[in-house]
């Protein structure tokens, strides 16, 4: 199998020479399977999931986890996240014409039995590009399609660049040819939208439509049967699934708090869960479960609010007089954090200190030893002293160079793995270098609220901790683009613009050139510090031993439909 | 002109009424007039619920007066009756039925007796102490009672304490609302004796409220018989006990047990007769709405409500 190499310390800090441990990504069993059965999946979360079952509208990572059962991309991809030809659809790229032609297999069906045609792919583009579209997907990638801008601005009724040939053939023309087109989850949208179900709903209403929440129609091996919004979902096998009816009868997903999931897995109450790294010590030796692991395609970081979004133009404006505007201050805050220590002590090495924004699963994108902040409080203090942040009034905290009191509000999402502890520790470390940092709103903030506060540039937040989920395409334009609404730091920079343009340019189709630009871009981040990358995480899956054929490998072509159980009840 | 004049006194209580039904009033006292002179004792007799206590309480200002006047020494005090300190207040005091309830269980006897002194007199500590001891002695209680609590006394003693409190300000008038009805015979006699003695000493008057005709006879010069908030008959002792005119009065008197078991049957027959007469003719003594009529004088002292009895003289 495909083995990921991970670091694990043995808990002894002085001996930080890492012990190398390998996690399996595939779980198998020779025991005979029972027919059907119900698999119980614990969705480990502190808050509830939002429950929008549509890749076009969903913004919630828990929803994404849930859609893994019910929605499948029409393309398959390989370990390097490059699209391949053995999914529901095949494609042909024409570099000269800058087109991609998509061919669907015959007789594909939605989970409600309706025929799945290329028209549904077109429909996805039409909705995303629609002026009333309320989701967050529309951006440079979509604007890159010929005719999309006109359609988006309402001057055209159709997207001229997308041409439906017949029920199974469609061609998309692009303005620019760029590397994301080859990337899974990249520039070629791979999730059709069921026109037959949603057509009657105005695009502006769609995000709130009950159809997407209660009877979502998808292409995946399972479909939603019953749902308690935010709490649990019961999936049933989708008999129209293109690879044939899945082996399991049902999958029951329930939200389980990180605090209890370990005991629940031990007691055999659930079959599968993504475990909190911070209690690895507790569950690593349970013998009724098998642990699988893979690197998560995400980077945890600390972001600084540096400006605001102009609502009219949608452009991000850097505010040079903002509290965090001084790069020295940001650097000092970065050097004050001992993430290596946190990773080792709190996460048993299952999270590694990040020295760049691109996660290591994308090999070659962030291998630069010289980058990254390591714990250096002396340097942090020096930086602050030099920049004029001094404690003049003797209250133990530094003031701004102008002598104003400097109170920094730090915000974080509630419910992550040991977040409370990490956040409290960060604050403590910042206080140690004389910065008056406190928790914005006094407590950790619930997911939705947190994102709304960031999106609306709430003045209550100066610094925040968040996670950047790259998805399968490491392209950072969305996170750092000048006109991206998801650029929560509101950091803009000429050089950054240039580099992002290069990333999105045709020239970078060459892999080595691409890597080079990514490295350069990351070096810029290191200098400017709009964000401090903190951790790369490992996802640990605990799987009850009655589960057969479970596979978490990126690019694996076999999914939930092949999973079987070997006994009626989970093994305790 | 009496010391205390009560004119057409009415006390009505609002009744809790049912949903959507109109508000009704309960006429606990429904127009009575009394003229009380100094040095005389008055009795107020009637069955339970006839409004006797309400009259007493209205006079000392414990009830809201619906209509009528209370005139003290020639001045109308009706409006001022709720006021805390007035000559009327000071000179008209009250003793209550149940000494257990009328003495604050949380206060020492000394405090209880000195309370009115405190409010009305500007006594010094010693003067007050002296007066309290005087009062205690008057009701036959030892000095060490001062520091004790009410529950340390028997019912009779407590009632004497209440008496001491009532007369502490040397009032001209004391309203005694069934002061002995919860007491045993022997104790009752004792309290009544003290009341008499104090009356002689202080020259005060009692308005004696009771349903025990024996006690009233013992204590009072003039008495009123009450029925449904009105007077049915008014007269001196002679008039009421020896020459009752109203059938209600007669019935009341005949119902009193006779201490002569030898004549039991006779007494019983008499009572039966009056009872049947009462059943027949009580109606005719009342106005159409069941209200007792106004008092009509029979003699200088004797008055009876509504229709004079058949043997009108």
């Amino acid at each position, binding site marked *: 199998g495909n083995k990921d190499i991970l670091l694990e310390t043995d808990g002894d800090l002085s001996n930080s020479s890492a012990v190398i441990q390998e996690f399996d990504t595939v779980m198998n069993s020779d025991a005979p399977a029972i027919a059907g059965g119900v698999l119980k999946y614990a969705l480990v979360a502190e808050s509830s999931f939002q429950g929008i079952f549509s890749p076009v509208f969903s913004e919630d990572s828990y929803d994404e986890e849930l859609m893994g059962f019910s929605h499948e991309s029409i393309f398959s991809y390989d370990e390097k996240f490059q699209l391949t030809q053995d999914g529901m659809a095949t494609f042909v790229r024409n570099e000269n014409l800058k087109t991609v032609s998509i061919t669907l297999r015959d007789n594909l069906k939605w989970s409600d039995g309706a025929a799945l045609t290329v028209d549904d792919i077109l429909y996805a583009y039409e909705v995303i590009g629609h002026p009333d579209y309320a989701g967050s997907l529309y951006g440079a990638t979509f604007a890159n399609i010929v005719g999309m801008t006109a359609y988006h601005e309402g001057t055209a009724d159709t997207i001229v660049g997308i041409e439906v040939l017949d029920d199974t053939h469609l061609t998309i023309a692009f303005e620019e040819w760029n590397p994301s087109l080859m990337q899974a989850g990249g520039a070629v949208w791979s999730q059709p939208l069921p026109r037959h179900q949603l057509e009657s709903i105005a695009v502006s209403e769609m995000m709130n439509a009950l159809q997407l929440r209660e009877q979502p129609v998808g292409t995946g091996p399972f479909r939603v049967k019953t749902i308690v919004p935010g709490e649990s979902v019961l999936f049933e096998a989708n008999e129209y699934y293109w690879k044939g009816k899945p082996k399991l009868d049902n999958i029951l997903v329930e939200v389980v708090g990180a605090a209890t999931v370990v005991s629940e897995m031990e007691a055999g109450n659930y079959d599968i869960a993504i475990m909190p790294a911070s209690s690895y010590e507790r569950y690593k030796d349970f013998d009724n479960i098998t642990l699988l692991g893979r690197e998560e395609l995400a980077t945890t970081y600390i972001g600084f609010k540096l400006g605001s979004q102009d609502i009219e133009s949608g452009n991000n404006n850097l505010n040079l007089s903002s509290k965090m505007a001084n790069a020295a201050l940001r650097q000092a805050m970065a050097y004050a954090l001992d993430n290596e220590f946190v990773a080792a002590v709190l996460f048993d090495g299952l999270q590694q200190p990040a020295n760049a924004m691109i996660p290591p699963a994308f090999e070659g994108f962030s291998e630069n030893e010289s980058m990254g902040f390591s714990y250096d409080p002396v340097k942090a203090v020096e930086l602050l002293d030099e920049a004029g942040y001094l404690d003049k009034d003797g209250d133990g905290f530094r003031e701004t160079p102008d002598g104003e009191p400097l109170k920094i509000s730090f915000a974080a999402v509630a419910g992550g793995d040991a977040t409370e502890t990490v956040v409290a520790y960060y604050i403590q470390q910042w206080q140690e270098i004389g910065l008056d940092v406190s928790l914005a709103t006094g407590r950790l903030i619930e997911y939705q609220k947190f994102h709304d506060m960031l999106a609306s540039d709430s003045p209550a937040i100066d610094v925040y901790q968040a996670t950047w989920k790259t998805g399968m395409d490491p392209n950072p334009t969305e996170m750092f683009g000048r006109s991206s609404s998801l650029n929560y730091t509101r950091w803009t920079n000429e050089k950054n613009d240039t580099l992002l343009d290069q990333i999105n340019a045709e020239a970078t189709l060459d892999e080595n050139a691409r890597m080079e630009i990514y490295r350069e871009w990351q070096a810029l981040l290191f200098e400017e510090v709009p964000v401090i990358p903190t951790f790369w995480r490992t996802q640990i899956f605990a799987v009850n031993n009655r589960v057969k054929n479970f596979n978490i490998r990126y690019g694996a072509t076999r999914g939930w439909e092949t999973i079987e159980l070997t006994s009626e009840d989970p093994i305790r | 002109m009496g010391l205390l004049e009560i004119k057409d006194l009415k006390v009505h209580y609002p009744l809790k009424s049912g949903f959507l039904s109109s508000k009704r009033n309960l006429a606990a006292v429904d127009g009575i007039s009394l003229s009380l002179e100094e040095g005389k004792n008055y009795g107020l007799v009637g069955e339970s619920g006839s409004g006797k206590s309400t009259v007493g309480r209205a006079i000392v200002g414990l009830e809201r007066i619906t209509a009528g006047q209370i005139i003290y020494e020639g001045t109308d005090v009706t409006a001022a009756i709720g006021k805390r300190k007035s000559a009327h207040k000071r000179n008209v005091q009250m003793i209550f039925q149940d000494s257990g309830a009328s003495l604050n269980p949380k206060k020492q006897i000394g405090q209880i007796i000195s309370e009115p002194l405190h409010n009305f007199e500007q006594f010094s500590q010693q003067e007050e102490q002296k007066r309290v001891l005087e009062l205690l002695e008057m009701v036959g209680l030892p000095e060490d009672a001062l520091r004790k609590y009410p529950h340390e006394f028997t019912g009779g003693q407590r009632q004497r304490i209440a008496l001491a409190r009532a007369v502490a300000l040397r009032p001209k008038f004391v309203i005694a609302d069934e002061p002995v009805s919860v007491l045993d*015979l*022997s104790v009752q006699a004792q309290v009544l004796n003290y009341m008499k003695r104090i009356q002689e000493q202080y020259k005060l008057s009692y308005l004696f409220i009771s349903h*025990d005709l024996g006690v009233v*006879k013992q204590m009072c010069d003039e008495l009123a018989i009450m029925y449904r908030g009105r007077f049915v008959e008014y007269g001196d002792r*002679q008039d009421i006990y020896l020459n009752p005119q109203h059938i209600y009065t007669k019935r009341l008197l005949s119902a009193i047990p*006779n*201490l002569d*078991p030898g004549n039991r049957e006779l007494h019983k027959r008499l009572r039966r007769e009056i009872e049947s007469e009462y059943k027949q003719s009580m109606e005719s003594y009342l106005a159409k709405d069941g209200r007792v009529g106004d008092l009509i004088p029979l003699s200088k002292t004797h008055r009876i409500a509504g229709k004079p009895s058949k043997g009108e003289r």
Partner: protein
Amino acid sequence: MGLGRPLLEINALHTAFRMQENYYDAVDDVSFSLEKNEILAIVGESGCGKSTLATTIVGLHNKANTRISGEIIYQNLNLIDLNEALYNRIRGNDIGMVFQDPLSALNPLMTVSEQVEEVLLYHSRMTKEERALRVSELLVQVKVEDPEGTATRYPHELSGEARQRVGIAIAVACAPPIIIADEPTTSLDVTVQAQILDLLSEVRDDTGAGIILITHDLGVVAEIADRVAVMYAGQIVETAAVVDLFTEPKHPYTRSLLRSMPQASGALESDSGELYVIQGDVPSLQQLPKQGCRFAGRIPWIPFSAHEQSPKMHEISKGHFVRCTCHESFRFEGESE
């Protein structure tokens, strides 16, 4: 029932309550008998043990903190020895009881008819209809106004008089040979009292029951009783036929009581002087002298030697018993020989 045997015979009855680990006699050496068709009045001041005596006869005391000894002979049975189940057959059926406060003695949540019927339920084999019939009969018998209406009402809807009549209806429902009425008229007006007393004597006349009437009102005694027992501090101090007692009271306590009573009937003295007062207070249960005459302390001018060491009942004339010998030398203070 043996000929000449009284209906109910009580011998040397003691009822003691437990208070702080000690037992105190609230009823102390009480003996008397009750004949058929007789009203026996028991008089005495508050706290002298009248109610305790009544409830002892009916067997209502909690065994856990009372101690009862002596004999209560009814139909050759000593009731004290009966177990609960047997006692339940006697209660209500053979002994009816009327209580002092008719409001609290009736269950506020049950209608009058339910409460009257309940007696019949446990002491007769009547059918439902028969019982209903009997209930209305009883209500007519005790002369409540509007018997039918009353039957369906709840106690709080009735007047005090009607309540007490219902109480009597309950007591006489099974036509028991013995009725015990504990101060049945104390909480009522005199006019009502007279009628209730009439009702009781009618019941006696109709059923021939023996009635024990407990009261503290000598007037009531004079009105209705055939025989009287005077109680003081847990003991009977004098028993006599009613006329004897009022004409020739013997025991100093009886005499004092009679003397201290203000009288409504009878002549009007021109100036009704002071009433007679018994000195001192009734001793409380815990302060009772263990030995000697219990009334001695209240007539201190009588020499100690006039009392008996342990006072016994003495028959001084037929049916007239007096406790202790002090009555022989008793004079009121200031009274000439």
